[in-house]
């Protein structure tokens, strides 16, 4: 079996700061990490390798420094790494990204082995769109399995895969044919610490570096900014509320009195809550719900 895992190097969003005047992201000193959701996908691919045998190829599109993310993935146990890097890719939106990655995955299939399952994480932590996975599936005509919580089985003989998919209001058990694309939910298992021989092999493994042309992209107009139907027109900081929170006085008061003051303030601000929370007796005034909220 050949499992291809798409990963992305992202800034560690917990450490991102915005410049207060220019509204630009201050990247200096912000460490990059592998998108955490992609690690769930990588771990699942490695587990499938343990069970069914085969290889894991990790692929990323990004600047040259994204090689670090691929190297890291190799130490976890991936067998091969492909870096798709070209100035033509700069400014890609999700449609252009899925085009470039789909081309690269097709090329991986031609050069090494045809993928049986292509994985992505459920979304990235910097873009949060969850659109690149479905885009790749559509472009490569792979069966699309999003929000997969668990891969239940793969039948190599009949070329079928059965998964549990998180759906609205429940879980679906889906069976489809290979090859397919799986966007993986974060599982119970954290990414493994690679074994010593993984680390040794990673050190010997060269990251394959492809330009757009190497990945079989003849027409760079489909890539990057030019291949992106969407345009970011304006970037701005969220407006802050003018008023800060009204503080309940806590000086020299027992906690129960503070709690009483808080409850009084809550009901003063939102009288309807008295009714909603069941604090209104039959003599009380019925607070009308302010919106028709169908739950």
């Amino acid at each position: 079996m050949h499992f291809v895992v798409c990963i992305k190097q992202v800034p560690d969003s917990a450490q991102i700061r915005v410049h207060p005047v220019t509204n630009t992201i201050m990247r200096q000193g912000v460490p990059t990490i592998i998108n955490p959701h992609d690690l769930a996908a990588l771990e699942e691919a490695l587990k499938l390798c343990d069970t069914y045998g085969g290889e894991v190829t990790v692929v990323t599109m990004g600047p040259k420094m994204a090689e670090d993310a691929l190297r890291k993935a190799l130490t976890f146990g991936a067998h091969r790494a492909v870096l798709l890097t070209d100035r033509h890719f700069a400014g890609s939106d999700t449609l252009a990204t899925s085009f470039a990655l789909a081309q690269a995955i097709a090329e991986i299939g031609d050069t090494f082995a045809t993928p049986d399952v292509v994985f992505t994480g459920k979304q990235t932590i910097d873009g949060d769109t969850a659109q690149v996975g479905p885009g790749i599936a559509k472009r490569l005509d792979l069966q699309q399995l999003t929000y997969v919580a668990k891969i239940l089985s793969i039948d190599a003989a009949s070329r079928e895969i059965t998964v549990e998919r998180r759906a609205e209001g429940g879980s679906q058990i889906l069976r489809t044919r290979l090859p397919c694309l799986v966007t993986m939910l974060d599982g119970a298992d954290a990414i493994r610490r690679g074994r010593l021989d993984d680390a040794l092999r990673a050190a010997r493994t060269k990251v394959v570096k492809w330009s757009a042309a190497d990945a079989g992209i003849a027409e760079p107009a489909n890539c990057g900014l030019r291949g992106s139907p969407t345009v970011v027109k304006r970037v701005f900081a969220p407006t802050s509320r003018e008023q800060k929170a009204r503080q309940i006085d806590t000086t020299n008061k027992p906690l129960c009195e503070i709690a009483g003051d808080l409850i009084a303030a809550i009901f003063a601000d939102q009288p309807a809550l008295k009714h909603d929370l069941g604090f209104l007796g039959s003599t009380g005034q019925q607070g009308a719900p302010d919106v028709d909220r169908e739950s």
Partner: protein
Amino acid sequence: MSTENREACSPPSGRAAMEKELPKQFQDYRNVWVFIELEHGQVHPVSIELLGEGRKLADKLGVHLAGVVIGPPGGQGTANAIADAFAYGADLSYLVESPLLAHYRNEPFTKALTDLVLANKPEILLLGATTLGRDLAGSVATTLKTGLTADCTELNVDSDGSLAATRPTFGGSLLCTIYTLKCRPQMATVRPSVMAMPQRVNNPTGSIIRHELKMREEEIATKVLAFFSDGDSNTANLAYADVVVAGGLGLGAVQNLQLLKDLARTIGGDFGCSRPLVQKGWMPVDRQIGQTGNTIRPKLYIAAGISGAVQHRVGVEGADLIVAINTDPNAPIFDFAHLGVVADAISFLPALTEVFTKRLERRNFEKFAQ
């Protein structure tokens, strides 16, 4: 689409400043469409919220609003969906009914929606950013090679009629407004509870346009073997809870989550947490509140021991009343909360629960005595 890989999320790029002349084949694309999501026969509330937004966009553009209903024939589901579409502002509805659409599967739904778009040419197509909506939107946008902006928090049309879709980026630290310039339809998804629920329209009516699904079961590779409903299980539905109590790192230890649950139970609310607690494994991800978790719009939100990072703020700003409890008087949460208590959540939560309980008991006693 969005900022995926868009490294330079900075002031207007060269292309955005370019002329927005729409290629000829897209110039007759008109009207605003909302995909009405059916979840086992029930209309997902996010679709109603989108009808409210869609109505505003259609009015600004002077065009029609259409509800798009895709589902199995016979049952009440599609009929309810059409009734809701009209009740919340649609002028017309498109309906694709087929037994192949009984459960959500990507292939037939993508085929149904893509064919509808190609035949009827909407300029704007909105979907809920649910697991279904995101799965479908990504496929449809890729098939049509058009732009898709995920998780919008604001939708507007600018002076030349383009959709201006605003979404948070970098975990909510910044907002960006995204346009789809040279393709149609302009697609966008919006997460549940981000937009307000619109008012019902009186005496709603409109025309229903039926389309056939040109597909056979043998052409669909994916089969649904089973569906396990969450039903009454304790899976969270925070997006639509009226009262939410949430905890953050200030709770200190995993056993203190009980303090949160006690308060939630007392006041009939649901409970959740900020992202760090999910990362610690203290609570499942479906209880996470914030940009990457649930967006909530409760009448009352109580945040205990949550510092209030931007990514959390984005998810709770729609609450009618935000109460923050934090030991640090300078915590960012006090910048967007309405009421604040500078106190240790671990000791204050039990006091709050106790006072609420006493008042409820007293109220019940009075009721009983009358």
